[in-house]
Every structure is written in structure tokens, then in C-alpha cells.
């Protein structure tokens, strides 16, 4: 039998750098009260959100993704021709084909990279980290640029008093590359398609075109909260177990920024020590779907609350339902 050569790669991978970008329009809770019957206090108490960012006319998923990616590449200290794959995680690129990742790669000056979009909603960044880690360690790519970009404001239903205040726009990006020591733990991920109707696009494209309506994002908040505070709490614990760590080994916790109250519950369940720095960027950015985790990572590092080399647990969960988490070394 003819022997086919197999690719081989470095023993370990890690996240080399992170960048982020937020749009210019700051939307506070009071602004939303023109659309829904609610109060600033109710919104803050139920979600922790005080404000979020929405794209202005000259901004888009493309401009945010490019800005975050440029920052990540510069901070990684590598040249663009060392990047062999570009992955964009998004659920808010409203152009079915072609994927956006190839255009981002070209605009970033990355020649001939494998480039594709993935759709894993709020778990998308962690799904992407798992893919990037596998690509690097198997020798399929020397470096992977992973971008999570979202403009959820464009599908937010401003008349829905359960979700109108939740979402914001933004992008985060990381470069994953080879490492002497392991910087990315085993991924804990999965899905449950029986709960496809828990977070969903309210009309499919056929119906939308027929009716002349633009789809929105629907969510059964109670079901999501129940799932996140039960099943996801256990999955977060499993991420630590799989990495061979205990809560005491952790320096930073970056859960998907879906709701401050979910984060509170995860903390209670995991019994993380006081010293662990916890991401709370939902307060200023809202829920940015796939982008929340890299945006929070960048914010914690830039503000000095977290430091390069520290050990962090990340976990995302959302529409699918899908979830994904792993322990990482901060870039």
C-alpha cells in the first residue's frame, strides 16, 4: 500500500496574543426605555448591564474584526505570512456566502491562508480555540488567527422586553501558535439540538423574504438561565478536571458574558477562591455573543487586573444549544 505522509506539529500550542475592538456608539439603559416598558434598575439588577456598544454607520462586523485582528497580530510579534489559517466565529455576518474570513485575511495582508467562518454562537470563541490548537499541534497551520466578531444589535428586537437590553457589538481576536509548554487545556464541549428553540433566529430567510421582515434574535431567558446555572456549571468544573487542575490553581475566570447573575451562580458552584479575578465586562459591553470572551480577556490584561502567564478558565454557551470551555494560559 502506498504510504501517505502525515503532517506533524509541535507538542504544544498557546494563545500568543489578544486584541479587541468596540464600536463608538455607547447605549445606556435609559436609551432603551423609549422602546420597552422597563426601568434602569430592573435591567441592572437582572443582568448587571449598565451600557453596551452599537455600531455607528461607518462601522461593521468587518471593521471591528479587522481592528481586533490587526491588534492581535501586532502583539503576537509575527509577520502575516506566518499565519496559515484564519477562522472567524460569528452569527451576525448577514451574507450567507462567501464567508467573511477570506476577505478579512486578504485585507489583513495574509497571503493564501485557509480561511472560513464558524457558527457556534456564544460558544464560538472556545470552539475556535479548540480548532486552532488542533491545527497548530497537528502541523496543519503554523499560526492560526482566530477572530470572534459580532454585531448583534442588527438582529436585536427592541420591542422585546426580555432581550432588548442584552446585546452589544464588538470583536476580539487571538493568535494561536506553537509553544514550549502547554497553554491550552483539553476542550470540554458539546451540543443539544433538542433545545434549538431556546435561542433562535425568529424567522428563516425564506419567510423573511416573503414577508419583507428582517429576522430578530429570540430567546427563552428562563430556559437559558436554568441550563447555564445547572448544566454549564458542571461543564465548567469538568474543564478544570480535564486540565488536571483545582479551583486553587486558577488565577482568572472568563465565562461568556451572558448575564452577571449567571456568572454569580457559576462562581458559587465552582467555589473559586477570592483571589480569582472574574470577568464582568457585560456591565459596559453587554452580551457580544462569540466576542465576549476575547474582549473580556483583552480588557482584563489591558487594565492590569490580569497578567500574562496566568491561568484562566474560559467557557462559552449559547444558541444550538452549544457549549465549550477550556483552561488556557493568558497571552
Amino acid at each position: 500500500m502506498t504510504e501517505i505522509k502525515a503532517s506533524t506539529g509541535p507538542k504544544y500550542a498557546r494563545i500568543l496574543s489578544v486584541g479587541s475592538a468596540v464600536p463608538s456608539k455607547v447605549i445606556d439603559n435609559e436609551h432603551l426605555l423609549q422602546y420597552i416598558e422597563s426601568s434602569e434598575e430592573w435591567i441592572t439588577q437582572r443582568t448587571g448591564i449598565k451600557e453596551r456598544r452599537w455600531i455607528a454607520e461607518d462601522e461593521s462586523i468587518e471593521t471591528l474584526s479587522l481592528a481586533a485582528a490587526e491588534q492581535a497580530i501586532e502583539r503576537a510579534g509575527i509577520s502575516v505570512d506566518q499565519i496559515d489559517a484564519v477562522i472567524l466565529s460569528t452569527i451576525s455576518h448577514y451574507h450567507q456566502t462567501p464567508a467573511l474570513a477570506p476577505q478579512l485575511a486578504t485585507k489583513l495582508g495574509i497571503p493564501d491562508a485557509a480561511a472560513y467562518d464558524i457558527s457556534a454562537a456564544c460558544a464560538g470563541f472556545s470552539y475556535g480555540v479548540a480548532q486552532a490548537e488542533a491545527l497548530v499541534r497537528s502541523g496543519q497551520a503554523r499560526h492560526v488567527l482566530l477572530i470572534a466578531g459580532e454585531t448583534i444589535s442588527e438582529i436585536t428586537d427592541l420591542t422585546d422586553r426580555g432581550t432588548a437590553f442584552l446585546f452589544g457589538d464588538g470583536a476580539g481576536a487571538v493568535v494561536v501558535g506553537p509553544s514550549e509548554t502547554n497553554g491550552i487545556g483539553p476542550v470540554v464541549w458539546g451540543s443539544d439540538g433538542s433545545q434549538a428553540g431556546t435561542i433562535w433566529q425568529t424567522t428563516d430567510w425564506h419567510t423573511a423574504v416573503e414577508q419583507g421582515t428582517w429576522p430578530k434574535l429570540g430567546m427563552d431567558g428562563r430556559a437559558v438561565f436554568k441550563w447555564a446555572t445547572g448544566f454549564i456549571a458542571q461543564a465548567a468544573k469538568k474543564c478544570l478536571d480535564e486540565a488536571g487542575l483545582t479551583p486553587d490553581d486558577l488565577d482568572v475566570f472568563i465565562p461568556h458574558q451572558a448575564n452577571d447573575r449567571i456568572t454569580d451562580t457559576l462562581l458559587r458552584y465552582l467555589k473559586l477562591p477570592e483571589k480569582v479575578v472574574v470577568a464582568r465586562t457585560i456591565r459596559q459591553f453587554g452580551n457580544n455573543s462569540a466576542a465576549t470572551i476575547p474582549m473580556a480577556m483583552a480588557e482584563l490584561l489591558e487594565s492590569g487586573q490580569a497578567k500574562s502567564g496566568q491561568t484562566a478558565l474560559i467557557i462559552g454557551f449559547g444558541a444550538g444549544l452549544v457549549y465549550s470551555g477550556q483552561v488556557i494560559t493568558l497571552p
Partner: protein
Amino acid sequence: MATTEEIRAQLAELVNDVAGVPVEDVQLDKSFVDDLDVDSLAMVEILVGCEEKFGVTIPDEESKNLKTVGDAVAYIEAHS
């Protein structure tokens, strides 16, 4: 089998943990929402906690009927 008082006491600890309500306030005649000021999200979390702590399943349609501490204790007694 746990007594009504034992279930109430364990439930009181859970309500205290989730919503910060003093354990002595969590009595059978008290309404979660009206008397103990437990909001809807905390209520979901308490019910998830009950499922774990008492090994019961509380379907969503059933959870709407559990208005008082006594309702929840009676449900747990009947289903655990």
C-alpha cells in the same frame, strides 16, 4: 425519609445561599416573591438547586405553581 421540617431547613439554606434571605424567614407560609423578595431568576436558581439537593425533577409548568415555601416542600415530599 426526611421530615417536613428537615426539608424546610435544607430549602432555607438554599434560599439563603442564592438570594441572601435569612434562614429563619424561610417558613412554610411565606411566598417566595411577595414575602421573601425572591426575583424570577433567583427562583429558577432555587429550583435548579432543589433538583440537585433533593433528587427531584421540577418541570417548568409545575414550577409556576410553587408559590410558597410550603408548596415547594410539599412537592419535594411527594416526589423525592
